[in-house]
């Protein structure tokens, strides 16, 4: 059986987020008065928070290193050269992966909020990822980076749940056809299954919005079709997570979303990383 490995300290889990930081991400997202870039940053911060919570076992012990997480931003400079690199700023990290333990202790800042506006009820919201949007969309270079991380991971943790790579993008690749890159990415594997590659298309095309479809639709444009083709089918554990969130998600449903609004970003990230629930 594949995609059944539970997450523990022997077999931690690797999550890689590829975040499109191209100029078009300044456009507002459907369903909320914020830009796509801001919406993504918000949701990623919320997800990291949730994952760290799942690693927190007691008052006396820092959150455990159950997850190694990478957030890779990709954009281009004014000359069109790709800028691809880790967004997480964790002191001492020697590469693009950060353990939940270190993330917990090194947010960029803690934003203070007050529940119901009551100054007595202060709570903090940690921030690791800030919004950024400029330049082009070097998708191939971004998948290259994800592949390096995944390669290193499957070598080091050959029996872990395989790395999950989630690409969040609104634009057509500006550095070539990413198909071959994605095929190679998905060809890597641990003993528990192949690397999973999921794509959320944040563009605002005329097509009907879709989450976790099993087949492409006629009204999709070439770019959406490409992202669908690159996306892995959801393994059973994530399929049932999608169904638990109320999606039909038939067998064969892909880790793909189209014309995503604010709410579907949340759903997509939750389902795509539902491996966190396999902590039992």
């Amino acid at each position, binding site marked *: *059986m*594949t*995609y059944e490995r*539970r997450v*523990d*300290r*022997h077999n*931690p889990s690797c999550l890689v987020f590829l975040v499109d930081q191209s100029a078009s991400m300044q456009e507002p997202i459907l369903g909320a008065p914020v830009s796509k870039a801001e919406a993504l940053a918000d949701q990623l911060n919320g997800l990291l928070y949730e994952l760290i*919570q*799942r*690693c*927190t*076992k*007691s*008052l006396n*012990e*820092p*959150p*455990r*290193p159950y997850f*190694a997480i990478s957030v890779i931003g990709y954009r281009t400079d004014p000359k069109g050269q790709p800028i691809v690199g880790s967004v997480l700023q964790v002191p*001492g*990290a*020697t*590469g*693009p*992966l*950060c*353990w939940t*333990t*270190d993330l*917990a202790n090194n947010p960029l800042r803690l934003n203070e909020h007050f529940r119901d506006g009551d100054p007595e009820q202060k*709570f*903090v919201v*940690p921030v690791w990822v800030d919004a950024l949007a400029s330049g082009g969309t070097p998708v191939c270079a971004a998948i*290259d980076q994800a*592949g*390096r*991380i*995944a*390669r*290193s*991971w499957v*070598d080091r943790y050959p029996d872990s749940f395989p790395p999950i790579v989630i690409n969040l993008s609104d634009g057509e690749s500006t550095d070539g056809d990413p198909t071959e890159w994605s095929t*190679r990415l998905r*060809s*890597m*594997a641990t*003993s*528990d299954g*192949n*690397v999973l590659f999921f794509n959320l298309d944040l563009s605002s095309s005329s097509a009907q919005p879709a989450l976790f479809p099993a087949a492409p639709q006629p009204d999709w444009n070439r770019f959406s079709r490409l992202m669908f083709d690159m996306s892995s089918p959801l393994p059973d*554990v994530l399929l*049932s*997570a999608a169904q*638990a969130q109320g999606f039909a998600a038939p067998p064969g449903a892909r880790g793909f979303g189209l014309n995503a609004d604010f709410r579907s970003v949340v759903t997509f990230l939750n389902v795509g990383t539902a491996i966190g*629930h*396999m*902590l*039992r």
Partner: protein
Amino acid sequence: MNRSAAAPVARDLARDLAPAVVIAVVVSLVVTSQVSAADGMLALLVAVGLLAVVAATFVALRLESDPAGEPAASTGVGGAQDSGVGSAPLGGPTFMPATGAAFAAGRPGPAAGAAGPARWPAAPAKPILWQRSAALALRHEPLAVSVPKLGNTDEENEDACAFDRAAGRVVVADGASSSFASREWSRALCAEVLHDAAAVDSAGGLGAAATRAAERWRAAVGSGGDVAWWAKQGLERGAFATFIAVEVARVGKKEGWRAAAVGDSCVLQLRHDGGAWQIVTSFPVQPGEEFTSHPDLLQTSAPDDVEGLRWAKGELAAGDVLVVATDAVSEWALTSTDPRTLALLAEAGPEELARELVRRREADEIVNDDCTLVRILTTPQLR
């Protein structure tokens, strides 16, 4: 169980003057015995002596059965500084389409297994009410075994179990690893339900017991004070656990059992048909049914929410064995194709069972989870 963990149990026993009760809690392999004393000091002495034996037994067993030893430091909390993970591109082949041969082909997994046996009728949603006087003391000392998941210490075992031999009651709880201080929660649930027949009678009864358990949990965990953001929010979010309580009692002229469960910790009724051990009943997860990653749970933040509570009952025949177990053991019992599996669960001694649980987890026959079971034997002279 080490001494520091054992001491509070002993104090509890002495304080409660718990008649004819032994709490066998977790964290390792625990073999318990009956304490029958009206006098508090006597109970304390018996409990301390007992726990010393248990601790010694456990240490011996650990030495004997710990095949893997502790995990490498790189998988511990300190693993965050692990340079091998941090420096992704180093060491392994580079990820370049032009050099595709450098990439190992994916290792496809085996095909999905065949469908399981037919499902049994769904468990009834109503409580199984018995006359309280019908409860039966257990004739034999139950056997309790608990081993933490590979890579974890005994103090990190989040399962708990307890039995009250006089009341014929067994309680097992499995703290969710993704929640905060779930070990304390599963222990608190066992402690509160063990002596509380009402908790098995009705949803309200279980809600009340879980509410008391949540207070016990808060006292055990502490208030936090000026702590890191993650600790503060961990306290608010709290702990989650699956739970099952099983009672043996007289039903008419026969003996039977009833169970109340939230989530996927199970009771399995095993019977030897002359040739081999068979599963007569399993509850709440049926053969062929999947163990999902999102079972119903009892939670500290809303302990009286027992929406997932289910009840079931069954008749016992002479020689039947009841195994009350957390999900990893239950799933193994329900899906294993090895004919020895049920025999092990029904017949093996505590040392052998603990060894086998570890061995089969290493062989991936059992998922790497805390594994806990309590076994009740009925006698051949029962009818």
